[in-house]
């Protein structure tokens, strides 16, 4: 659906842009394409440039590998880690914690948001309490959760869920309230029940907000899992960072950070993609077809 609307938009854009640009730059294909590709290329080039500078500085000034290892050393450690399987097994553990915790956070935040927005008494009692608990730094709860739920996976899952819950809840509550009053009345004038207003209006209206919350929450989930593993664990990428720090294997620490970033980027990309696919209507341009 989204692709078809975007194609229409492109079709409309083309004849509009051509007469302006044609005299100056004959044979220009589409306006947007010329600019978008270089931007990405520049980012990649800058990133590669920084890596080269890093490598040169480390080699030139003979920086101790205990302080900052060269990019090549980090890459070597990455390859080693995947070859002996240690990076993979620990990644799987952390990924499992992230996904389970994130899932619990999504489920409970959405259910809470629906209850809060649909039932006034629930809102009056629960919402102030939730705002109050939101001020607690969730990371500070991690040691307690380890005491309560042990050194295994459940304490990490709960830390992740706790950290991811609040941004999701706040955004979902905002989202469920975002439908215009006039839209609600329009549906009511067609005899829509409360459940139908929810289904046909409030849930779709909430989606853009929910996905904004998901984008924040998914990154926080990665942080939550690593912090919880720092506090006490026997496996996972957070454990691996602590272990490699203890043995002054800084290249390994960097390698783990690279893997964690990759996990974060991948999960974030999945959420963004899913959001663009589901919330297709806000991505389409707001320009209109000719007047009547």
């Amino acid at each position, binding site marked *: 659906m989204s692709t078809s609307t975007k194609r229409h938009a492109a079709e409309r854009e083309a004849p509009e842009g051509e007469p302006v640009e044609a005299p100056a730059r004959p044979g220009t294909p589409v306006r947007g394409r010329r600019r978008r590709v270089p931007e990405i290329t520049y980012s990649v080039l800058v990133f590669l440039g920084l890596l080269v500078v890093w490598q040169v500085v480390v080699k030139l000034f003979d920086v101790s590998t205990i302080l900052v290892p060269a990019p090549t050393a980090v890459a070597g450690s990455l390859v080693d880690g995947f070859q002996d399987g240690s990076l993979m097994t620990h990644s799987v553990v952390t990924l499992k914690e992230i996904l389970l915790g994130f899932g619990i956070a999504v489920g409970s935040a959405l259910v809470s948001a629906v209850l809060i927005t649909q039932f006034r008494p629930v809102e009056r009692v629960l919402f102030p309490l939730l705002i109050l608990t939101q001020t607690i730094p969730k990371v500070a709860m991690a040691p307690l959760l380890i005491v309560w739920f042990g050194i295994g996976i459940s304490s990490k899952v709960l830390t992740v869920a706790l950290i991811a819950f609040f941004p999701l809840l706040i955004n979902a509550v905002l989202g469920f309230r975002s439908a215009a009053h006039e839209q609600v009345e*329009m*549906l009511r*004038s067609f005899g829509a029940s409360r459940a139908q207003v929810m289904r046909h209006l409030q849930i779709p209206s909430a989606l853009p907000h929910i996905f904004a919350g998901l984008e924040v929450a998914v990154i926080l989930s990665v942080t939550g899992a690593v912090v919880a593993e720092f506090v006490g664990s026997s496996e996972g990428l957070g454990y691996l960072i602590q272990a490699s720090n203890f043995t002054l294997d800084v290249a390994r620490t960097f390698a783990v950070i690279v893997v964690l970033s990759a996990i974060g980027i991948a999960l974030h990309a999945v959420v963004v993609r899913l959001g663009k696919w589901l919330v297709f209507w806000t991505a389409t341009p707001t320009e209109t*077809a000719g007047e009547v």
Partner: protein
Amino acid sequence: MPTSTDTDCVIRLDSLSMVYPTKSGGTVQALDDVSLSVRGGEFISIVGPSGCGKSTLLRIIMGLSRQTSGRVTFGPSEDTHRNQLGMVFQQPLLLPWRTVRKNLLMSPDLHRARDAATRAKADELLVMLGLEEFGDRYPNELSGGMQQRVGIGRALMHDPRILLMDEPFGALDAMTRDQMGLDLLKIWDQDRKTVLFVTHSIPEAVLLADRVVVMTPRPGRLADVVDVALPRPRRLENINTPEFGEIVLKIRKLLDSEHSAH
């Protein structure tokens, strides 16, 4: 009680009053003792300045607000219900995630009645509204005038006997607005639904209506009901005729006198 002479009366308002509480603890009288009988197939315009309770009146008829006192009755037979009402709002209020066609099918979808017949009806409406090429487009790909056409089509989908229109062209530019008014008359002429049309514009009210209800602000009262005995079908040129000018002037004077009386 409706009398025997009111057999063709489809909406009857009996001394409707509406009082709102305000945030500062006071009250605002939006409507005061409004009575009106609307005949079947009649096109009625309601004019008045902002805050005269025009919209409140439509909302009460539609059942979106409840009056403080008075009665709304639908006639002539007992089977006339609120589901025979269709409402068009000032904004198109289309759902952006539904295509134009699916926006038209809003009401059948809500009543789980989408079938071949309703789909055919939607296609028919698309043609009637001049939107046959836009059925599978999304609302944000349409101009404001086109969106409002969809809003009107959506209200016509369940073939209501009574159409309530709350400043439907208020958000459109003047040229689009005139054209939409004439298009509305064409649609109305096909099966002569009863229309209650709220507007700020006196010429628009006169051009469209059989009778113009003039309202005064705070409290919203019915100043007078002006008959528009202009021949149909109406055209834009009607605006330049002396008869048209006289009616417009009469309404303007009514509004002015009520204004200076306060």
